[in-house]
């Protein structure tokens, strides 16, 4: 069984199905059916996997463009498995959310999200650089349309900025891939990982790849597209953007940059650690004065993704392998928990936005009395984002801070400031919006109904489960991480 191809194909076919049949059957049913089928395929795939083995499994490899030795090559390991699972869960939430709201052009809307699902899963599964690049760029189109068609007032500016910014980065990545492909006589990541490269070559390649990854993550000076994109995107677009699109950047660093360019990664580690710290502290400060709810959450996303890059590049300063895997595991867990933390915040806020079409924090007041259930869920997500123990947000942050304190205590000290910063900006926002007497806008809203409660409850349970028993996730992540770590720290320079 070609589970991996099936998984990718299911989203694509579902998207086509929605477009073709959506006029006759309720397109939401088709979309949810597609996601269920994908989940079923994913379940079958899970049965086939051996999680204690950290290597690539269920490899599918077919010649695609033989002349350049480009192959259609898919594979999965524990890391990819977790991220694919994340993608499916998030898409479940988005598709389920589509039952709760009405958009114009519903068919196109759903088809785009199914297409997006395929593309993101493709990125997580591809082991061939060109295939990876194809999925990578394929992701942009649905997101661009999503912001451009269903966005709010400034949508075309935000969509254009998003598209051009990320595209510029990816083109540089393509150049890097072509150079690597010529050197390795193959576009397979596995072959690229074993090709020797001089430090100078590695450095330039690293920067070229980083251009794509850093924009997507986004790292500190490349982050300004994100607040714009988030503010203008519809709720579901924001959820996907925060939960999935930011993750592919970090995934690229783990899967591509670090194993293929280990020496350059080590060389640039101080820079990356520095940028991550700036993201954590500086962006945390910036977030405090944001007036727009979605902008604030977007900035908190940047700060939290700072922990991912921090954890990843601390491995080059770690004293031993266990310490390094602590950092890397922390980074990956942070990726996943951030998906649920920020994604949940965007999702919940989307439900509110649909009632009142207002994003400015100052306009809200007293939501707590008008919407008690909603405010309870929202508080849980805020707490997860702040990193309160027993919620998902704590685990990754904690592990990364622990690694930082052990490897570079001063870095750890700075990273730990986030405890205070994030509490300050998120709770101030929460206070303004949820405490006090209801404002004019808030007077008109109703509390969330049963369907919405179910949706948020589902996310909350995931958030709590990840926080209470992260070991369940970590035992899946640990074997592949040790392998990737091995590749990431073994030098390629000829001695």
């Amino acid at each position, binding site marked *: 069984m070609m589970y991996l191809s099936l998984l990718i194909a299911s989203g694509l076919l579902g998207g086509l199905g929605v477009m073709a049949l959506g006029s006759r059957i309720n397109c939401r049913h088709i979309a949810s059916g597609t996601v269920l089928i994908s989940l079923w395929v994913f379940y079958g795939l899970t049965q086939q996997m051996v999680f204690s083995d950290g290597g690539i499994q269920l490899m599918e490899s077919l010649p695609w463009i033989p002349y350049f030795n480009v192959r259609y090559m898919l594979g999965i390991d524990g890391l990819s498995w977790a991220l694919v699972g994340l993608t499916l869960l998030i898409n479940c939430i988005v598709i389920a959310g589509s039952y709760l709201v009405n958009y114009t052009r519903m068919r196109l809307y759903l088809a785009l999200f199914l297409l997006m699902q395929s593309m993101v899963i493709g990125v997580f599964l591809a082991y061939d650089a060109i295939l990876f690049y194809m999925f990578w760029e394929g992701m942009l189109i649905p997101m661009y349309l999503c912001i451009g068609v269903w966005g709010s007032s400034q949508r075309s500016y935000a969509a254009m*900025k998003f598209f*051009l*910014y990320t595209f510029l980065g990816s083109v540089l990545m393509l150049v890097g891939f072509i150079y690597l492909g010529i050197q390795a006589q193959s576009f397979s990541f596995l072959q690229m990982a074993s090709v020797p490269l001089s430090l100078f070559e590695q450095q330039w390649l690293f920067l070229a790849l980083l251009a794509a990854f850093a924009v997507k993550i986004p790292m500190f*000076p490349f982050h*300004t*597209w994100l607040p714009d994109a988030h503010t203008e995107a519809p709720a579901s677009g924001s959820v996907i953007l925060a939960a999935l699109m930011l993750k592919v950047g970090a995934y690229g660093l783990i899967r591509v940059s670090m194993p293929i360019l280990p020496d350059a990664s080590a060389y640039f580690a101080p820079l990356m650690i520095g940028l991550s710290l700036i993201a954590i502290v*500086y962006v945390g*400060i*910036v*977030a*405090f*004065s*944001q007036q727009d709810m979605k902008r604030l959450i977007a900035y908190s996303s940047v700060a939290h993704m700072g922990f991912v890059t921090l954890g990843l590049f601390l491995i080059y300063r770690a004293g031993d*392998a*266990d*310490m390094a*895997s*602590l950092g890397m*595991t922390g980074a990956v867990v942070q990726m996943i928990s951030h998906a649920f933390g920020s994604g949940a915040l965007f999702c919940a806020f989307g439900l509110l936005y649909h009632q009142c079409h207002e994003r400015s924090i100052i306009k809200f007041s*007293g939501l*707590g*009395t008008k919407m*008690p259930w909603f405010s*309870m869920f929202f508080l849980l997500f805020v*707490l997860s984002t702040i990193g*309160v*123990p*027993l919620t998902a947000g*704590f*685990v990754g942050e*904690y*592990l990364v*801070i*622990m690694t*930082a*304190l*052990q490897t570079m*205590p001063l870095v*750890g*000290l700075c990273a*730990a*400031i986030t*405890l*205070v910063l994030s*509490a*300050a900006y998120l*709770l*101030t926002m929460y*206070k303004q919006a*949820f*405490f*006090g*007497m209801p404002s004019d806008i808030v007077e008109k809203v109703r509390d969330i109904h049963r369907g919405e409660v179910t949706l948020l409850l589902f996310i909350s349970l995931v958030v709590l489960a990840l926080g209470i*028993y*992260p*070991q369940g996730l*970590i*035992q899946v992540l*640990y074997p592949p991480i040790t392998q990737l770590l091995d590749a990431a720290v073994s030098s390629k320079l000829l001695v």
Partner: protein
Amino acid sequence: MLVNEMALICLLSPLLGAVAARFYCHWAYARWLTIVTITVSWLFACALFRDVAFIGKAVDLYQFSWVDIGRYHFEVGFLLDSLSLMMMVIVTSVSLLVHVYSLGYMQEDANQSTYFSYVSFFTFAMLILVMANNLLFVFFGWEGVGLASYLLIGFWQTKAYPARASIKAFVVNRVGDMGLIIAMGLILLQLGDLEYANILGRGSQLLGVVWHGWRWIDFICLGLFVGAMGKSAQMPLQIWLPDSMAGPTPISALIHAATMVTAGVYLVCRFAPWFELSPITLSIVLWVGFSTMILMGIVALVANDIKKVIAYSTLSQLGMMVGICGLSGYVFSLYHLATHAAFKALLFLSAGAVIIASNHEQDLRKISGMANHRTIHLSMFIGLLSMIAVPPLSGFFSKDAMLMFSAKQSLWPYVVMVGGAVLTALYSTRLYYLLFWQNRAINKTVPVGYSICWPLWILSAASIYLGYAMVPYLEVLLRSVDVGNQITVLVIKDIQDVAGFIDHALTSLPLTLTLFSVTVLTYVYWKKPSVLDRLIKRLAWGYDFIASQYGLNALFERYMVTGYQRLSIYCSEIVDSGLIDQRLVMGVSAQVKKASGPLARIANGKLYHYILVMLVALVLILLGLV
């Protein structure tokens, strides 16, 4: 029954109550449900106490592995010894009483199920904090109680002041939590583990580790103490506690007097063997504790809000406990912690009753007619006497033990301690006179119900009796926090001879001074109140300064918060959107656009231009070939 199951039931029962009350129950059942679950928890805590506390060694109960990476094992598990069991009993008892009390206190509130759910959740988190067998799991509880405190301070959501106070409490607490996290990282680096059983005995390993001339253990202990300062509201992180009085009064009794704020003392005592290895930190602990005790005691003398007076007295008492920890008298700190939990809960709950009876008036200058309320009068009286340390009430035993201990250590701590005791006497007397003597007009007061009175009676009994009852327990308690301090053993011996102890205290300096100052103040209030008025007028300039906690509150609210806001706006507008976004990102795009102008003129869409260009190029290429 097995110890493990008992511990689990004790811990999880309040959680069950909290969840069920929040989600499934109508409020009328919710409150009873939480009371039932808390009672279960209390019963099991007592049973565990009876079974485990006296066996002389700690029981370690592994539950499950939270995160397991290579050689790092982060686990969830319980450690039951005489220290944690004592805390468990204190927490569940006070919590149970507060639950019952809240039945009456909160009966007019619409969100009762939420309230009871939060209180139960607090109990759960606090139990985690005291039961945990490793620092990480402690941190779960540590943040959990902070969260519960945040939720409960801001319980009356529609008012502005509680909302601000709740954020302040959470954020300031987080500063402390940062210290704890940092300590955890440093411990992990050196010892690779966070479990008490594996690390506490290995403190001497840390002695050799030096970083740029600083000893590692000093950093670790300092980090732990910063955590403790946050929770136990030691200066300068004390600013959140007075504001936390914005929450419902039973909460102030439970969280901000009896249990949560003592978590810092608990942590310091837990890590007693390490603090012993770090004399620098110990002296910092001593200084911070004593300065909090004295300075906050003085603030208590000028505050006019009944709850704030008690809050400042809590700060002062906490400072006393922390200071004694700094002298290595951990057992006596814990002793005072226990008795303090009883009499301070009593004081707060009585204050709550006062507030109810006077129709939600909190200003001491306006409350009147309280002397006629017999229950309130009596319970407040007992609580204050216990706090002043009049023999043979609870507070007397613990405070005199601390005094005796400090006297045997050295002179100046003893002097400061006596000063603290006198201050306690002064503000207690002032509170009493302002509350019951000043306005004796018989106003109409609101009657208070039985659910309010019963906890008061029980706590009154505890405030009288607990100190004596705990005397035999001190030896057991010492086993958990034994640092080989000989003076501690001597003092415990002295206390065990109760009659001799009381005799000795009656003739000692502190009690004499205390009673003297009470008498003087009583005389002044009774006969010559004008003296006080003149004094206050003379010292008016200092009044505001002291009332604002020596400017610390203003420093925080005016300068730090505003400054941070300004910094944030600067970063956001000038740096982020101005420099990075407009100059760099959009600047590049603007340059590209500018450059594209002339180029765009070439591609004008006119076919014949294109052909002409092609032709010319073709001719040039052909010429080139030729």
